[in-house]
């Protein structure tokens, strides 16, 4: 029992970590990413609103959420949402909190992308008397969004690495399952190392995907 690494124990825990944990990590990351990118775009547009009060509130919300820990926000939602009648299951709570937290990062990314569209594009749209909504949907966003995709992809990678936080509200991702296995057998080396390797594989493949997107965007421009 004193071997530093035990292969048979490693193979015993592997299916559970991959089958249960990995699937949960991917599910939460994908759903929360979609939520983050949609809400983030909304926040970015509110941030640019002509109404000063609207843009100020959007700014304050973004900065507050960005500056405080995701874990505490997760606890906030977990304990407070039921009080106000929102009885989400833990996975949904996790997706919503992750989505909102990362929406504030996405908002800044969109903002930078929008600001990178040359002024002349706005002026040309004005010269053609395009209505404002049409300018946004047909001129500005189609130019801004492809450029920000790689940066958004990088945030998805960050999010991936934060899914283990969900174990604090009882949702077991890769690390959650690994820690569970470890505590049952009083042996953490194998499950936690497997979890680490899985994360390396995941974030490496995700970064390849992001780089591929970067090249595609580079070509499109």
């Amino acid at each position, binding site marked *: 029992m004193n071997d530093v690494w035990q292969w048979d124990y490693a193979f015993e825990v592997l299916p559970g970590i991959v089958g249960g944990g990995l699937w949960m990590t991917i599910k939460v990351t994908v759903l929360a990413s979609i939520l983050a990118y949609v809400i983030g775009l909304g926040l970015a547009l509110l941030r640019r609103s002509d109404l000063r009060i609207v843009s100020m509130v959007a700014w304050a919300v973004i900065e507050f959420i960005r*500056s405080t820990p995701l874990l*505490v926000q997760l606890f906030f939602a977990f*304990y407070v949402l039921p009080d106000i009648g929102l009885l989400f299951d833990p996975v949904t709570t996790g997706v919503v909190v992750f989505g909102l937290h990362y929406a504030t990062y996405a908002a800044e990314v969109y903002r930078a992308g929008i600001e990178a569209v040359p002024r002349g594009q706005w002026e040309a749209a004005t010269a053609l008397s395009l209505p404002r909504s049409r300018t946004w949907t047909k001129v500005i966003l189609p130019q801004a969004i492809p450029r920000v995709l790689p940066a958004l992809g990088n945030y998805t990678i960050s999010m991936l690495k934060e899914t283990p936080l969900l174990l604090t509200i009882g949702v077991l991702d890769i*690390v959650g399952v690994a820690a569970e296995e470890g505590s049952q057998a009083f042996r953490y080396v194998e499950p936690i190392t497997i979890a680490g390797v899985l*994360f390396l594989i995941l974030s490496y493949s995700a970064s390849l995907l992001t*780089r591929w997107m970067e090249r595609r965007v580079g070509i499109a421009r």
Partner: protein
Amino acid sequence: MFENVPEYISTAADGLWITVGATVAGIAIAAVLSFVFGLAMLSRLKTVRVIARIYVEIWRGTSEVVQLYWVMFALPILLGYRLVPLLVGILVLGLNFGAYGAEIVRGAVQSVPRAQYEGTIALSMTPAQRMRRVILPQALVEMVPPFNNLFIQLLKGSALLTIIGVSELTHQGKEVLIPRNVSEAATIWTVILLFYLLLAILITMGMRWLERRAAALVGRQPTKRDSVFARFGGGKDPLPAEQSKGGLADLRRKGGE
């Protein structure tokens, strides 16, 4: 609803000092590792570059929670003895964020214009003189804003220490205050979030001061930003990797007339 707030504040404050201590110590370790490995990634020796790259990829590529568990529970089996949770937390914060910081240092050094490097050659400076006297002082200015982001991410990351049982700020909420007053969860967590916000503002103020000092050093204006809150871009997200900006990275690539 608010009559218990003073009690919440004083109880949370017990954990505040541990959060502050872990954050400051984590920042100190991360800063040192950032420079050591950031410069190592620019070394002329391939072995040194590879070692630095492996450190950065492992600590950036895995999750902070994995790292906490690993150092807390797996490492003792290899080591033969256990580290106290607070020490584990500080080490992991330093090692994890040091890996991100190394990329910041590398990127900033590479962003110093190649012309500056050529200037040092024309004056026959040694490689060490080039780096210490000319390149690094200029790179420092570029580093401050991304390090501001990184240190706030580190502060936020310190909340995870609660998972391995460090009684820091978040722990005080989850394990002390919530069990006592679960009906006032909203107030409790708001108090704690505000503490974190306050610490984030303090970090930003400190870094703004540093940025002004660094900018004065190279005789230029600090970058304009909306307020003490406003920061550039994301922070701990992986930097667009290997994106050279035509700086020192291109030294080996020769350019024509």
